[in-house]
């Protein structure tokens, strides 16, 4: 039985073979019957294959375009009790396909190592460590002492314990962030004094206070919100804001399953193959959330095309559409005039090898039955030979 299946490896896709093997066991088929089914499967499989010259790119575009018209235009949706909003529907799909550098709602899904993922309290602790903390979140009071011309900051001890920060670390981070201040530690917090005095001292002090409130002191930069969520049997953390490289370094984080929805960041940290998979996952998520049905092969086609060159290229005039050789094809996508003007200034040639430019010129397009051409090897020698042959024939 095993050998029978081995015979068909390469003739049929592995998934079909696996399914067949399972089904045959359930139905208790005899080898002869299995062979019959497999032969029939090959016939059907070969019929289902795409023909040479089929315009798969256009079919993909149509398959995305039609359901796209039915997607909700409602950009914000709050998933369950989560306070983290995620871009969905058509706007998100456009973001993915254009490969935008900055996306509207960057977000991460952080998985925690198994030993920490069971207890909600432990997950919360990890979440608090990851979240980017600003000084205003750990400070209880900001006072301006007018007589001494200094700022007095009172820290919330409980909050500091929660994020595992030491007052000394906070002071160090503040000194790195803001120049020309001297900080002294006190019992309740610290006092801050500008090193240089100016004419508008009080004004400066007030400005400094506002600046200090927004200063980063602890956590991972870029992660603005954290939200522990139960998924299956374990807890994961969903974040707003993303910083994959730094989050993967956190010891409690399971670095093999944590992911972000930012394509370019994924490509930078995990490489182009991971970015390709992210495109597939994210686009698939959009389609699924909207309750639509687009075949996975269309998404694979787009993802492969976007990652073909080793970097992510969106379907924009600066991305893969801009890579087209034909001037007319580029002009037909976006901003036709600049393309035509540049091409005429540079004296570019158009080989008319693709579809759209031939449609414009009312010529047969190289697709399907229009694809094959007659090719004859006609070097100068063979032409001469034929000519002499003809002459000899006419002489006769």
């Amino acid at each position, binding site marked *: 039985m095993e050998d029978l299946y081995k015979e068909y490896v390469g003739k049929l896709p592995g998934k079909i073979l*696996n399914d067949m093997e399972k089904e045959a066991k359930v139905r208790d088929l005899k080898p002869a019957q299995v062979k019959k089914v497999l032969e029939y499967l090959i016939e059907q499989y070969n019929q289902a294959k795409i023909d040479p010259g089929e315009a798969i790119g256009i079919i993909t575009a149509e398959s995305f375009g039609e359901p796209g018209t039915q997607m909700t235009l409602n950009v914000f949706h709050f998933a369950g009790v989560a306070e983290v909003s995620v871009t969905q529907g058509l706007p998100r799909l456009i973001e993915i396909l254009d490969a935008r550098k900055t996306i509207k709602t960057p977000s991460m899904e952080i998985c925690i190592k198994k030993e920490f993922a069971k207890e909600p309290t432990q997950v919360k602790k990890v979440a608090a460590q990851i979240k980017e903390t600003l000084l205003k979140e750990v400070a209880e009071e900001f006072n301006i002492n007018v007589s001494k011309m200094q700022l007095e900051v009172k820290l919330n001890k409980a909050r500091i314990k929660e994020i595992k920060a030491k007052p000394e670390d906070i002071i160090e981070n503040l000194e790195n962030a803001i120049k020309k201040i001297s900080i002294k530690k006190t019992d309740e917090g610290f006092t801050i004094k500008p090193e240089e005095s100016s004419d508008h001292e009080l004004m400066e002090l007030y400005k400094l206070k506002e600046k200090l409130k927004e200063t980063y002191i602890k956590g991972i930069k870029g992660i603005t919100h954290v939200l522990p969520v139960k998924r299956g049997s374990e807890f994961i953390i969903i974040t707003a804001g993303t910083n994959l490289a730094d989050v993967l370094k956190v010891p409690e984080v399971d*670095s093999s*399953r944590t*992911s972000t929805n930012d394509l370019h960041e994924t490509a930078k940290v*995990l*490489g*182009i*193959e991971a970015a390709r998979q992210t495109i597939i996952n994210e686009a698939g998520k959009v389609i699924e959330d909207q309750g639509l049905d687009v075949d996975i092969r269309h998404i694979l086609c787009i993802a492969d095309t976007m990652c*073909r060159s*080793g970097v992510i290229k969106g379907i924009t005039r600066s991305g893969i559409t801009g890579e087209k050789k034909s001037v007319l094809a580029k002009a037909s996508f976006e901003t036709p005039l600049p393309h035509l003007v540049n091409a005429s200034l540079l004296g570019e040639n158009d080989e008319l090898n693709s579809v759209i430019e031939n449609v414009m010129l009312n010529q047969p397009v190289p697709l399907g039955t229009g694809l094959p051409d007659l090719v004859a090897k006609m070097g100068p020698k063979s032409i001469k030979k034929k000519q002499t042959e003809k002459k000899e024939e006419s002489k006769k």
Partner: protein
Amino acid sequence: MAEKVKPTTINHILVPKQVICDEEEVSKVLSKYNIRKDQLPKVSIKDPSILALEVEAGDVIKISRSSQTEPTSVFYRVVV
């Protein structure tokens, strides 16, 4: 001076298994699809997922992905 850290393979669900493809297989693939090496899909030499392989430009990487349509689908990229 900081010691040069040897890059390690990334262990991540999004990163598929990648190995350097030997010459024989490369020529097999190229003749199968009737293409030149530079017509293969590309991968940057600085790509973090292949740093550990210590590749050179012109090498072909064999990628075994797990896919929704096949248990493992094989893909090739040329290093640039």
